[in-house]
């Protein structure tokens, strides 16, 4: 292994999600044996931070994120939230999936968000639901599409709708799997800006775990960046990012971008 730039000091009091020697394997499709997707990863996500998981395609980022959400079991080790092992998904940890099929096709953009809001706060009147949902529809710039069905949206619009839905239910932990992957450069920057803004507006109460393979995005968004390497998915480095939220041409930020790029390239 290369010298790991581990400039991170651990503070157990602020750890919200503890990933403790976690390995995740899938059964192979035919015959016996397993595919190891995540191997022996230990890391903690702190309360109120934006934590980025960075790595090449197929290195197990989605697998790890889904396991934090409680959707799939870990093969060994343990994931704890608030010190309790994760067993099943809850509305406190909302996952924005990587694929476009996560909207309910039989509900409009607004309807999808209203559905989630009504699940989260069953006592809300339908007017309250609608008002709150509309606010988030506007936030992601889907106002003109509010009454459209998902099949009439572009890939990026669908993803923005899913993001709005996740924000609207105010989860304690937001798990986002390459949410901006399908967006054009302008919308991508805008959503990154919005993500930083919403996180700040929630008086930094929401904790975000964000998967990406874009180094610039990682540096723009993450207080800390966890780099994973392939074959099989291991924790390669954990990097503190003091230049979070700075403009992309900032000197320190660029230096970190280069550093991370090297980490991703290096095959060891």
């Amino acid at each position: 292994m290369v010298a790991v730039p581990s400039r991170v000091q651990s503070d157990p009091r602020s750890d919200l999600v503890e990933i403790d020697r976690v390995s995740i394997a899938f059964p192979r499709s035919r015959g016996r044996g397993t595919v190891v997707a995540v191997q022996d990863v230990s890391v903690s996500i702190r309360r109120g931070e934006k934590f980025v998981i960075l790595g090449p395609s197929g290195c197990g980022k989605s697998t790890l994120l889904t396991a934090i959400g409680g959707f799939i079991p870990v093969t060994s080790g343990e994931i704890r939230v608030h010190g309790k092992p994760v067993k099943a998904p809850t509305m406190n940890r909302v996952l924005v999936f990587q694929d476009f099929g996560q909207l309910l096709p039989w509900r409009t953009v607004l309807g999808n968000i209203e559905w989630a809001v009504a699940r989260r706060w069953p006592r809300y009147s339908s007017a309250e639901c609608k008002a709150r949902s509309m606010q988030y529809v506007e936030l992601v710039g889907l106002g003109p599409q509010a009454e459209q069905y998902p099949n009439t949206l572009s890939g990026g619009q669908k993803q923005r709708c899913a993001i709005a839905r996740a924000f609207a239910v105010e989860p304690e932990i937001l798990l986002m799997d390459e949410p901006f992957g399908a967006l054009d450069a302008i919308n991508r920057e805008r959503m990154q800006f919005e993500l930083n803004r919403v996180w700040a507006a929630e008086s930094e109460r929401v904790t975000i775990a964000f998967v990406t393979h874009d180094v610039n995005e990682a540096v723009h968004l993450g207080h800390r960046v966890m780099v994973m390497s392939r074959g099989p998915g291991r924790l390669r480095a954990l990097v503190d990012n003091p230049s979070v939220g700075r403009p992309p041409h900032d000197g320190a930020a660029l230096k970190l971008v280069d550093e991370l790029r090297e980490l991703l390239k290096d095959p060891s």
Partner: protein
Amino acid sequence: MTSIDIPEAPSRRSALLGQLLGAGALKKAIVLVLLCVAWEATVRLLHVNKLLFPPLSDVAVRLARGLGLGAGASGELWGYIWETLSVILQSFAISIVIAIVVTGLAVSNRWMREVLSVMTGIFQPLPSIALLPMAILWFGFSRDSLVFVVVMAMTWPIASSLTVGFATISPTLLRLGRNYELGRFSMMTQILLPAALPMMISGLRVGWGFGWRTVVAAELVFGATGSGGGIGWYINNSRLFMNISDGFAGILLVIIVGLLTESLFRLIQYFTTHKWGTESF
């Protein structure tokens, strides 16, 4: 989907009409008119015995009178058709409930899945009219016998397309449901059923078609024994009393009702799966 047939974005109204009538409506109408003319002309020009094969005009008059159109018309057909419809509607409701419950169980239980798959395999190829003699033995010459065979005709196609519908639901939607903490029942009503609706509609359509054929056939058998009272019974009676025009009118009515229900299914599709872009055929 017939997107190839539509050269430019159609207006909303013509889109609805197109959905109701299916593709090539104008050509179909022309063919239909030609068929009618051919029927009338053949019978009249070849001097076919009217007692055996009446001209279309006679049949049309009988049909109109049977439906209560024109002076001194009886309107008796309404009663017969309603009798048949009430049997099939009741059976339809029963079949849907059975199919949903059975496939719902099959989704969550491995053994139920096998039971369902074997049952569907056995009963789907069996023309359920073949069960009528047993049904008569068990339930007598009653409405229950009819309902029994019709339910047997409808349940299996509905259940099997529902199974396919459930099996092809995207895993992401199921995860979404888990994320928002849906229980078993809400998962069914809020994710599984709407997601399976395209397959469900086609299952209901096929099921209804089977049921419609079965109920008319069963009534014909009943008619031979002198009880019953649906449209099939009416058709059979027309033979007994040598009112063959009435028989043809009954047959036309059976066809018309079949076409109308088909349009109804298209209409349901237009306002649901067509709008959502999840239409399966």
